[in-house]
């Protein structure tokens, strides 16, 4: 499977769940959204070897001051 996470790309040749993939990459599930072949999936979804995975970072922000636009 081809996995895109930000500017980095990874390849794995065994199927695994989304949860296991995030563990392997050291990614905290709460901070990301995962799409497989363009569709959002839950952590228990099994990713097949020929799937394309996009791990989309959800965390944003800079200032800890209150009141600016998000």
């Amino acid at each position: 499977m081809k996995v895109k996470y930000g500017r980095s790309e990874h390849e794995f040749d065994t199927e695994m769940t989304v949860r296991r993939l995030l563990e392997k990459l050291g990614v905290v599930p709460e901070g990301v959204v995962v799409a497989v072949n363009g569709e959002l999936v839950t952590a228990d979804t099994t990713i097949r070897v020929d799937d394309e995975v996009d791990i989309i970072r959800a965390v944003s922000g800079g200032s800890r001051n209150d009141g600016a636009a998000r």
Partner: protein
Amino acid sequence: MRCKRCRERAVAELPQHRMALCKPCYLEWFPAYTAKTIKKFGMLAPDEKILLAVSGGKDSVALWQVLADLGYQADGLVIDLGIGYNGKAALEGYGYSTDSTDYARRTAERLKRPLWVIDLRRFVGKTVPELQRGQRPVCSACGVVKRYLMNRVAFEGGYDCIATGHNLDDEVAALFGNVLTWDVGFLARKAPVSEQRGDRLMKKVKPFCYFTERETAMYTILNGIPYIHDECPNSVGATTISYKELINQLESQAGGSKRRFYDGFLRRRPLFQIEEAELQMAYCERCGMPSPLELCGFCRMVGDAPITEYGALEEVRPHGAPTARDTAPSPSP
């Protein structure tokens, strides 16, 4: 995993709500939960004139969509801060801020709502990286500019309130940071609704304060709403992001931690408000906006820029409409 409502295949896992939803159910649930939050905190009356701060990021474009779907009349305000992809001052018409502004424009066009566009370079002759002048973190300068212009445009444009897309992660990370430094004044002011103070410090509301960042990201993606995925280059390594990552680790181990922390704070917030009552409201001698000092933070930061530009707000205009020189200052839908 199956949708809690209809038993179809779930696409959105919501640990803090102990459920998962399929795409159609999620797209129904998200605006309904926003409406519930607005009602719980008494944020908005149906006929309030709302100025929505739009950055082009997922939270603000999602909020604009949801407010429109719920029947609120919200106009947008976007500020081209002049930040390039290297974090420094961008060439005019290029860079991160220009692209962010374009996403705000695209949302305005899709929703057919007016958008105030302020180009900071034209307004005060400088970009945010140039205003920073090495004296403060660039995020701090950015916050001063945004808060000032949001309040000023809301006041001069005749709006009832300002809405921002702050989410639960933003609120919890800000609280966490200010608990670490025991900034009691900040803790006293932190709320889903900040009521208007005096005649010029406008009311602010945060209808997404109960959504995590994952939840707003899932909504924009499932709804096919375009937003800028790149983060502000100046936010790389920012303290807030490291707080958010720490808090996300906690949330992944114990779902609902963010919400418990936030609700717990809101219940105890009156404990911090004793100090706030002592603050005196005054006005900036140069621009007339609220300020505890002779000069407001914005005027102090901008320095020598001609004062006449502040009063006229000539570079503020509704998107696609004539400039403020030709029209009244308030945008018309």
